[in-house]
């Protein structure tokens, strides 16, 4: 009887242990993924396919995908990291991850890349992810700009499609018009955001600066603003804004909408301009061509990373996500779904080229920008980029408002940039 009781107790304990142990071994993991691109047509759809693939490969595990608006993104991510609850899959803009990396919040992905055999040779913009000799992220988009123009407006003004800065300026002047003579300009030659943050302001100026041969820093990170090339670049920017060839004080989205609706003749922008053009009132009159600036502006856009303070099991799951997103198959689908140039050199672009008529333009621009190592974020000023860009914006605004000499402005910018380093 005693033995039976012993067996009964042992069986009960074993059953209890089994019941409690089972959920542990089969515990479903939920990865938190925060992104501002969740509902964006094209790119959001592509992220959705990556999430779906990861969930299919990890049955029982899920990804909790949350959208946070871009305007509140840096605040939200800072708060999440500072509070010790970072998202597992870290998605950041390429101009903001440096501060997180500098704080030790991002995992060194070098060993993961090595272990998985991911080949990052020729991966566009990946250099930017090498922060303080450590691979802290994988670049998810590096784009080259394309050039949109309103064919009808150029015809009416009697100018050809511009192929260099001088022709661009002449075309912008010829197409800026007060159509009904009421003293209010109804049609602008080109369009720039002049109201937003420093990062966007620099991106708007950059085409003119790069074409003039100017750079904020050299490859070693030394400030190179006080140069004749920068003075020329600033003069060009001042000319375009001061002569009101662009509408003032509008956001980037508003400027794009004006171009799409036929109120702006020339627009240099990222690959996303095509889908905006397609929704505009003037879509039949809008065409695309190569950017009339050399080299074209290119830019890193966003990155994937991993927090350093999550468990090793979770890190493996996050790496699996990154591996899917960077696989040849998903880089190929990135081109077609997001209608953008994927960073991977191994992506098969045949389908994208067949589907998207201007894909070659984008690819050519991306290649040219990458070859010249063009980016909005100057080498050596990565951590201070927000302060730097704000300073450049303010000094450029001062130049326009107070009608200052670009040479004096370049000197001031140079001194302030050096003080920031």
């Amino acid at each position, binding site marked *: 009887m005693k033995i039976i009781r012993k067996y009964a107790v042992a069986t009960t304990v074993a059953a209890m242990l089994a019941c409690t142990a089972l959920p542990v071994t089969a515990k479903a993991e939920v990865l938190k993924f925060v992104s501002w691109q969740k509902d964006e047509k094209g790119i959001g759809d592509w992220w959705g396919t990556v999430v779906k693939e990861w969930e299919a490969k990890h049955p029982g595990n899920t990804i909790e995908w949350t959208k946070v608006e871009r305007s509140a993104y840096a605040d939200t991510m800072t708060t999440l990291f500072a509070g010790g609850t970072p998202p597992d899959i870290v998605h950041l803009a390429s101009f903001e991850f440096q501060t997180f990396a500098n704080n030790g919040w991002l995992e060194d992905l070098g060993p993961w890349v090595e272990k998985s055999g991911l080949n990052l040779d020729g991966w566009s913009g990946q250099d930017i992810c090498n922060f303080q000799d450590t691979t802290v992220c994988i670049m998810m988009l590096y784009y080259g700009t394309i050039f949109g123009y309103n064919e009808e407006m150029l015809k009416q003004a009697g100018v050809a499609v511009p192929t260099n800065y001088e022709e661009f300026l002449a075309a912008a002047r010829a197409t800026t018009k007060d159509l009904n003579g009421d003293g*209010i300009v109804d049609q602008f030659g080109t369009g720039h955001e002049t109201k937003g943050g420093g990062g966007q302001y620099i991106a708007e100026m950059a085409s003119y600066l790069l074409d003039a041969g100017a750079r904020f820093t050299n490859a070693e990170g030394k400030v190179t603003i006080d140069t004749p090339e920068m003075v020329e670049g600033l003069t060009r920017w001042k000319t375009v804004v001061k002569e009101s060839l662009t509408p003032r004080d509008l956001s980037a989205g508003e400027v794009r909408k004006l171009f799409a609706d036929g109120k702006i003749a020339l627009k240099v922008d990222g690959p996303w301009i095509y889908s905006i053009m397609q929704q505009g009132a003037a879509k039949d009159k809008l065409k695309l061509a190569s950017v009339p600036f050399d080299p074209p502006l290119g830019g890193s856009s966003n990155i994937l990373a991993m927090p350093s303070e999550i468990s090793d099991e979770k890190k493996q799951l996050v790496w699996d996500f990154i591996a899917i997103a960077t696989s040849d198959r998903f880089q190929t689908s990135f081109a077609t779904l997001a209608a953008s140039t994927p960073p991977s050199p191994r992506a098969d672009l045949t389908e994208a080229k067949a589907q998207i008529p201007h894909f070659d333009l984008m690819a050519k621009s991306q290649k040219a920008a990458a070859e010249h190592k063009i980016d909005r974020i100057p080498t050596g000023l990565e951590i201070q980029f927000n302060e730097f860009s*704000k300073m450049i914006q303010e000094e450029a*605004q001062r130049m326009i408002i107070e009608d200052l000499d670009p040479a004096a402005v370049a000197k001031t910018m140079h001194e302030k940039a050096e003080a920031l380093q």
Partner: protein
Amino acid sequence: MSVRFLDLARPSRQHWLGYLLLLPAVALVALIIVYPLFVSLDLSFQKIGMATLSAPRKPFTLENYHKLFTSPDFWNSCWVTIKLVLVVSAACFAVGLGTALLVNNRFKGRTLARLFVALPWAVPEVIAVVIFAWIFDSSFGLMNWLFIKLGITSQMVNWFSEPTAAFWVVAITMIWKGYPFVSIMTLAGLQSIPEDFYNAAKVDGANAFQRFWYITIPVLMPVLGVTSVLVVLWVFRDFSIIKVLTDGGPLKATQTLSIMTYDQAFGFFNMGYASAIGIVTLVLCVVASLLMLGRKSQAMY
């Protein structure tokens, strides 16, 4: 013994019940207001970029305060904040008091007029800001169209690219959003003034201005005192109107202390420095409130 000690029915223990009932609310306030305040105070004495709650405390330093008081940006922000507080508060009081006196009179359509006076208060701040951004749009805005049609100017005014113009756009938006509060508070105060006061003054031969100056204003002083504190504090800490309209620009012409705090904390990730600005702003707000809640806000009778 212990039961008798906790006997809340005893006359000498009755106030304990009040404290006990207050305890949850006090604990909640301490958690969501006092604790962050102390964290902020603590951060302001550390040279810290990105703050992490779990990170070890950095050495005590006064560097943030030294940097703050020697920074032209800080003094510029103080000046912008003071200008905005004076302009917006004065205008809110003038418009708010005027409209309250107007809708306190009996006339046909008074209810509708009261509704219109209070309407801006009901409009969410961000929506109000978007409306004003359209009105003052530099290229296609209503205000520029009006100015040109009326011959006030021959060319478009760049409302958000000119420092003075941008300051006034921000001020006008804040006045529009803030005056209904003064109006509603004042209207409530006006309705509590006994009619007998005015009748007696009329018998004594007081004219309308004398009745306003010697009866209305003194009786309204307690209401106006509290309202002025609330309006000043609102202008001091308001963030969304400036952030959406101008983001503190151009050339820091609209950069108030709250915008500067945000930029330093979430733009440049200088949490220690941002905390120092926040603490100084708090001190300024407390001093301003104490000054306004002094003798002048008491009734004159």
